[in-house]
């Protein structure tokens, strides 16, 4: 992995200006807001500091790359750090809507933050384009005409893992996930598409880093395969410990634990593991090749899943802007629904609940030179929509 230890932090002119305005207004009395330029103003709330900042930085970099490539200078992006705290995210969305008067919001990484921000934002007439989180309530009963998910519904990758496990002939899987809503959704998603038996089902503590106990149970369970959803550091810990335990059963998981950024920290322990993803850097399309090359040229590192999602989100936005003005909400919404852009992941369309219909692939972790990365080995689900379409009355 290439680090830029002393790289200049991303300049945030807008937020700096806002802070100065805040300071000034606190001391000197409020100043009137600036007159708005034509075009569109986008508010990006994402995680840039603390644990999990890597994901937010990738989404931001992917998004800004697309904006830069478009050559449009009437797209203003205000970027703020939510510190992965729901209450901060809500404050920032208030700020974006009330003070910055943005037209479109985007950027949130985590489902719990999305649940805190999205319903309020769309209720106030703003568009929200999700570059990562896709919690089930927002796909089902809580769906909204102005909410578009450009990544996936949360269950998708787990469903694909279930489908792959069945297809690969696994009959007795051991499944585990952290004990929180995304974790229970993950196991439910896996079970939705998996046809075999379960050797065991475990909920671990959120943030847990030692999996010796769980691995011992896997060993004793007589399972023939393992499915896990453990995002971030939890997955790194699990994979390293699992590889060391000598249990050696085939492992399937969603792409989150095999992302470009994380993979280098797992190292050889991840080699050969199958994971499901709607994107991979070796996907053979012109749009994707161009994205991977330009991302590497711009930032000096390989793009991740999250970077691709940020990139696609920006391109979707740009495609809609080319067709309609954001002030005409109905026309703009229709332009978004058309999803008329070259996605890095190939065919892309929206289901009626504004979540993607897309192919989900199976990848295998391989080593290319010194770098651990993923290689596509097959298709897990074709044109997969999501399980909540019927719950959404839009």
């Amino acid at each position: 992995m290439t680090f830029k230890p002393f790289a200049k932090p991303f300049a945030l002119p807008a937020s700096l200006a806002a802070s100065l305005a805040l300071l000034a207004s606190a001391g000197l009395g409020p100043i009137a807001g600036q007159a708005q330029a034509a075009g569109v103003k986008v508010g990006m709330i994402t995680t840039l500091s603390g644990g999990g900042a890597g994901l937010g930085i990738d989404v931001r970099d992917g998004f800004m790359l697309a904006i830069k490539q478009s050559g449009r200078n009437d797209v203003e992006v205000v970027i703020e750090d939510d510190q992965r705290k729901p209450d901060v995210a809500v404050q920032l969305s208030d700020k974006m809507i009330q003070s910055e008067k943005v037209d479109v919001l985007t950027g949130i990484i985590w489902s719990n933050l999305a649940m805190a921000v999205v319903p309020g934002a769309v209720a106030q007439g703003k568009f929200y384009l999700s570059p990562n989180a896709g919690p089930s309530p927002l796909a089902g009963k809580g769906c909204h005409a102005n909410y578009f998910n450009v990544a996936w519904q949360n269950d998708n990758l787990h469903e694909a893992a279930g489908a792959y496990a069945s297809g690969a002939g696994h009959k007795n899987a051991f499944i585990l996930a952290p004990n929180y809503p995304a974790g229970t959704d993950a196991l439910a998603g896996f079970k939705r598409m998996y046809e075999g038996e379960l050797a065991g089902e475990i909920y671990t503590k959120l943030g847990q880093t030692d999996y010796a106990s769980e691995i011992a149970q896997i060993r004793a369970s007589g399972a023939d395969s393992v499915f896990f959803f453990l995002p971030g550091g939890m997955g790194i810990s699990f994979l390293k410990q699992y590889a060391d335990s000598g249990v050696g059963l085939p492992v399937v998981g969603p792409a989150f634990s095999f992302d470009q950024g994380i993979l280098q920290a797992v190292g050889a322990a991840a080699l050969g593991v199958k994971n499901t993803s709607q994107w991979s850097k070796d996907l053979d399309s012109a749009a994707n090749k161009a994205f991977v090359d330009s991302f590497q040229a711009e930032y000096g590192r390989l793009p991740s899943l999250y970077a691709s999602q940020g990139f696609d989100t920006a391109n979707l936005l740009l495609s809609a802007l080319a067709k309609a003005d954001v002030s005409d909400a109905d026309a703009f919404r229709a332009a978004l629904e058309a999803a008329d852009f070259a996605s890095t992941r190939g065919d892309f369309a929206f289901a009626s609940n504004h979540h993607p219909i897309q192919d989900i692939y199976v990848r295998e972790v391989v080593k290319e030179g010194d770098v651990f990365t993923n290689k596509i080995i097959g298709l897990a689900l074709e044109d997969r929509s999501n399980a909540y379409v019927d719950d959404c009355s839009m």
Partner: protein
Amino acid sequence: MMSKEALLNTALMALLLLVPLGAWFADEPFLITLTTRAVIFGIAGIGLNFALGLGGLVSLGHAAFFGLGGYVMGVLAYHAQTYTSLMTWPFELPGTTAMTIIWLVAICLSALLALGIGALSLRTSGVYFIMITLAFAQMLYYFAISWPAYGGEDGLSIYVRNRFVGLNTMDPIQFFMVCYGLLLLVLGLVWAMARSAFGLALGAARQNEERVRALGQKPQRLYLTAFVISGAITGLAGALFADLNRFVSPTMFSWQTSGEIMIFVILGGVGRVFGPVAGAALFILLEYSLGGLSDYWHVYLGAILLGVVLFARGGIYGLIAGREVAHD
């Protein structure tokens, strides 16, 4: 003549009122929201300060009350908005969206929780007390994360703010005025309590338990009472905070929340009635001004906090108003 402390109090309260009013005229609603946040954090800090400053009880678990207040708001409003009952047996209990009822319930339940936690924790003292209060808050944190009924880690969104007679609470300035009014009320009560018989005895117990015992009073009873009042105030702040965000999540129970509430108190000045309000306002100002400077703004925040502890003992109030004058 007004003492420096009284001047500072007046300036602080005036600033907290004038900034949002100015922002309202200038149509900068976010500034109002920001000030509301400072006001609510101020109330939470006043709560902790009652136990910490007056009673000397260093609680690193006040997130328990803050979070409980938040969940009281979330759960009651959620049931009211979905027209479901909290429970149907032994009697039917509906939810509500009336702020006043929510506040009352938050205060009562937080007081009850504080009674339980306090009764157990006050068997210990010193570092043990710090750690056992932390442990109780952690218990609630993990419980909130893994209990699926009200959203677990995802938290609970309620989309519209609760009702307050005659007001449109979704309007930032109106909701601000509600919170500001409560702040004044809480300040008034705490001010009075600090000067009451109870305040005198509690302060004496903090300074010298042996003295209070020799005079025939049990310090533990004073502490427990202070802890309950303290928890109730912080619980009220939690309910307001959740209403401000229209959202509640287990983060409100986290130990970082406890740490932040403690920071408000120390930044402002331990034991000064208005201290936490000043501390919370400064914290919010730092958070939003430093946050724009760099992604790594926590480094600066840390350095500033460190500077306050090492070189500016007594916080803002200690720095500006000097040593506390014995009040009469």
